């Protein structure tokens, strides 16, 4: 029994080992690898937008209105003659900024609330989890809409609005993990040598909850992409002339039948981005979560 458990190191034992095994496992998972490549490409595009976009995203050319895809405009032009490919490239920047900001806000908040609730239990747990349930019971898009409407439309408001509704699943997950970890022998041993609650939470319990939270956050990125695009579509996200993908679809709606490329190109961008996040999240779960077995 000892031999088998020993030869296979536990996942997440250290950052380098994890990274190494992560890429090792990803190579065996072509779909996850493609997804990761797609996301890396997207981030590069977002960073390099000023240099790789063939045109300025706001350069209007009324002589080139609603041109179909051609050599000059690979994805055609919109109703103001703006190059759609350039707008998509600049839009990647907006999408990435939204996704990363929301994740950076939601991850720590969800982890903190969940771990605190799970570790202390009792009344602290009851209060924190009821708050979580209340937020969870709101349809997230509606709450985001109300919030964006109240604070005024804009990218910043969209980010705050999405963050407000995105933390409860993370908190629940972290709580479930903390409930398991707080009963382990190594936490009992730490109590015996007088480790303080703060120390137990930050140095013993939280690190054990991080892998599953990371997986969940990655899967959440797909939802965030969609919610951000939805808000943009409804006019409550990034404001024109910012090349936000959802807003571009909204604008292209009117020409859907005759000039399909205006709405379809940003649609594909959203589709592939959220698909990539989903696929990478799934692959991450296979690598980081030992309880989740591949079928």
């Amino acid at each position: 029994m000892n031999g088998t458990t020993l030869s296979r190191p536990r996942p997440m034992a250290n950052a380098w080992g994890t990274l190494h095994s992560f890429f090792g496992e990803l190579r065996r998972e072509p779909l996850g690898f493609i997804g990761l490549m797609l996301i890396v490409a997207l981030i590069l595009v977002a960073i390099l937008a000023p240099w790789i976009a063939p045109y300025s995203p706001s350069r209007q050319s009324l002589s080139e209105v609603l041109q179909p895809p051609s050599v000059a405009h690979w994805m055609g032009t919109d109703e103001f003659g703006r190059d759609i490919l350039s707008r998509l490239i600049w839009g990647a920047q907006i999408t990435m900024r939204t996704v990363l900001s929301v994740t950076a806000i939601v991850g720590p908040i969800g982890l903190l609330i969940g771990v605190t609730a799970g570790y202390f239990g009792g009344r602290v747990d009851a209060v924190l989890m009821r708050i979580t349930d209340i937020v969870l019971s709101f349809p997230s898009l509606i709450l985001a809409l109300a919030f964006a409407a109240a604070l005024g439309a804009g990218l910043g408001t969209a980010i705050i609005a999405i963050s407000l509704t995105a933390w409860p699943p993370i908190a629940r997950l972290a709580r479930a993990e903390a409930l398991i970890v707080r009963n382990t022998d190594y936490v009992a041993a730490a109590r015996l040598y007088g480790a303080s609650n703060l120390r137990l939470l930050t140095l013993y319990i939280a690190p054990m909850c991080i892998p599953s939270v990371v997986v969940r956050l990655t899967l959440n990125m797909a939802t965030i992409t969609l919610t951000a695009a939805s808000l943009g579509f409804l006019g409550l996200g990034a404001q024109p002339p910012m090349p936000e993908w959802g807003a571009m679809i909204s604008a292209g709606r009117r020409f859907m039948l005759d000039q399909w490329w205006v709405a379809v190109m940003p649609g594909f961008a959203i589709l592939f981005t959220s698909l990539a996040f989903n696929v990478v999240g799934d692959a991450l779960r296979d690598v980081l979560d030992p309880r989740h077995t591949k079928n």
Partner: protein
Amino acid sequence: MSMIELQDINVRYHSGKSENHVVRGVNLSVARGECVGIVGESGCGKSTLLRSLVGLEGHWTGSISINGEALGPIRTKDQLRCAQMVFQDPFASLHPRHRIRRALSEPARCMGLPVDDARIAAALEEVGLPASFADRFPHQLSGGQRQRVAIARALIVEPPVLLLDEPTSALDVSVQAEILNLLSDRRDERGLTFVLVSHDLSVVAHMCDRIFVMQNGGFVDELSPADIGAGEARDAYARQLLAASFLEELA
């Protein structure tokens, strides 16, 4: 003067109709430097008794004193330092993401004791491990090596009392003897007082001066190692336990 004094210890969960009376009126007195064993089948309350004694379990009534100091359910650091515990499963008792150095320095740091690399190296050496193990993670160690680290972790705060909850039952037979010898040596060296819980009679007979047989939360018999060797006991249940373990060894 006795090191550990337990009087009328009771542990109950869920008062009322669904009451679960786990430990029933246990009295125990352990002299300084003595090793006392508690045997019994799974669920008889031996682990709960140990956890109450060490301060992990707060639902007990009665009186507990270690080293002459009366202890309540909630302990101060100095009180916690009176007794440390070695757990059954060495795969679960070390934090999987802390290196051995961290596992050994944390107790000292929490207790406000000075700790440096030399101290860690000495602690590892004391349990028969090379100082280079400090940079390893628990998953890079075997079960026996991990249990040695767990013992070093318990000893690093220099407790007068060590509580052992089935310290060898998760280990290979060949490693069991090494760990038991290590424990005996440390006891002789430091004058430690042991309370050893086990379901393995041969382990208890090898280690302990006195052995208590526990059934349904209470002590039913007190045996000496010689009694176990001869298979003799006053209580019917204790006789049954001895006979069962004798059969096991034959098989």
